[in-house]
């Protein structure tokens, strides 16, 4: 179910602007990895490179290689949609499809995979919603619009939608930044449970969150505005937060910069 991700010399551009440079990083299966760093340091860009969502933006491109269990997803003949089915993504803002019901939102990915049978969809929807800790709250109103839920519920709905297709890896781009503390806690709890099945990579601005949820932490930074983001330090979360080996990491973590 979960796979190892290896990035080697990943460099990403927005047009002529180099956003990240030579990122080398290995993510072990069934772990939570947090990407932290100041704004504009390229952590989201790197995250979006992992499921080839970076190239969706006009003029954006990625160089280097990114392998999922030794398979390079940036090889020329790789089907992008297959990569994205394997590597799910949860976005910063909850983005359920506004025209769809809660149920339809959850099974949207399955429908895209051509699954039509009602019984399979029902079962998968319940399973995904239960995994996302949302089932009890929505089981009586599955036909209601997904956009009618609260922000935290919407985000859990998006997580359910992502895990319904049973991906290998789940990427989360600041999944709690638009949520209040209680909803944030619910999602953090969820991450603990999901880690049993999925490899999770999360971008967060909240260092306490990184410390709470992740096994390993990668610290990204930039020299100055306009420079590409680089990976400064990557280590066990405990070590990063207690005894980082790079001065810059320590400065960031203790709040002296960034």
């Amino acid at each position, binding site marked *: 179910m979960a796979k190892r991700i290896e990035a080697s010399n990943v460099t990403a551009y*927005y047009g002529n602007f180099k*956003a990240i440079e030579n990122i080398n990083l290995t993510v072990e299966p069934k772990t939570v990895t947090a990407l932290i760093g100041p*704004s*504009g*340091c*390229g*952590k*989201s*860009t790197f995250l*979006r490179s992992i499921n080839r*969502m970076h190239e*969706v*933006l*006009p003029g954006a491109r990625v160089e280097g290689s990114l392998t999922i269990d030794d398979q390079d997803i940036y090889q020329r003949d790789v089907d992008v*949609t*297959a*990569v*994205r*089915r394997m590597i*799910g*993504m949860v*976005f*910063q*803002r*909850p*983005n*359920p*499809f*506004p*025209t*769809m*019901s809660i149920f339809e939102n959850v099974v*949207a*990915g399955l*429908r*895209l995979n051509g699954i039509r049978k009602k019984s399979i969809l029902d079962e998968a929807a319940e399973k995904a919603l239960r995994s996302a800790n949302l089932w009890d*709250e929505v089981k009586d109103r599955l036909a*209601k*619009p997904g*956009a*009618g*839920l*609260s*922000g*935290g*519920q*919407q985000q859990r709905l*998006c997580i359910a*939608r*992502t895990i319904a*297709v049973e991906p290998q890896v789940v990427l989360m*781009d*600041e999944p709690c*930044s*638009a*949520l*209040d503390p*209680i*909803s944030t806690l619910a999602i953090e709890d969820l991450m603990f449970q999901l880690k049993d099945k999925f490899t999770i990579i999360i971008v967060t*601005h909240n260092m306490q969150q990184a410390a709470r949820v992740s096994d390993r932490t990668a610290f990204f930074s930039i020299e100055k505005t306009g420079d590409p983001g680089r990976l400064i330090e990557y280590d066990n979360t405990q070590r990063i937060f207690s005894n980082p080996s790079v001065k810059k990491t320590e400065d960031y973590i203790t709040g002296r910069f960034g």
Partner: protein
Amino acid sequence: MGESPPRSADAGTGGTRVTQSHDGPAGASARVAEAPVSTRTPGGAGLGGGGALPRARAFGAERAFRGLTLAAGTAVLVIIAAIAVFLIAKAVPALRANTVNFWTFEGWFPNDPEPKFGIGALAFGTVLSSVIALLLAVPVALGIALYLSHYAPRRLGTALGFLIDLLAAVPSVVFGLWGRDYFSGPVADFSAWLNTYFSWIPIFGGDGPFGASILLGSLVLAIMVLPIITSLSREVFLQTPTANEEAALALGATRWEMLRTAVLPYGRPGIIAAVMLGLGRALGETIALALTLGITFNISVNLIENGGNTIAANIANAFGEANETGRGALIASGLVLFAITLIVNITARAIIYRRREFTESAA
């Protein structure tokens, strides 16, 4: 469930479009709205108060503007009421003088000493030509709109969008003349071909002559409504929140699947509105149809034989030589057209309203 922003769906989704790197602060878009408020915060003692509070002004710009907008709003109602009264007052005497059934009689002789005129054939022709025009135009328009909004390179999209808008600026008489003098040739040939091979289908039957037919009128109409539907749907498609498109793509959707999952459902109310505007234009189109149709007064589903007529085209053709009763009869036909348009619009509203639960949060 004390979670805060319950209806943040669209405010939130708009946000990611602006933040190029997604590290920007959450709620950047919301902050824009608050900006004007913060400029009012006290700059010094003069603005920030201190001393007694001034009295609210009784007649300020605020009130004047309120009155102005109220007047503008009321004017619409007054104008519509005035038109309705005028039309009804003129139509009723003519309808009284009519010696045959207004709804079923197939013919238009209101100027005779014993006036005979019926709306059936005209209303039928109006609806038929408009519906066929839409059937032809909508798929093409949506195709163009999707291409312009999601496939074409941005610069090409803008240029083509501009050209499409230009098409809307061509006067309808030009379309009519073009249809009558040039386009009728190819359409006649095509009609003859259809007649040869498909005459067993009633709509393509008949013995000719072909050319100045409902088909020609509908084709010209289709070209005329194409720009409206295209540019409105393009706008709607462009407004699809990037976040929703990315959600679909991240689930492994191909581009077409993304359009089907995120863009088309989101744009549905907009598409319906665009189609209805197109239909409104088609129903009311006058001179282009007066020039291209064969002008007959019978109800026939044959699309390719010379013939066909519409309410508006009939008004244009018959007004010049109409006497008092004739004008009243034409005005009565105008009322019927008005009613048809009203029904169409109400239906469209009902369709949009039926799924308001889903579209409200989207719109």
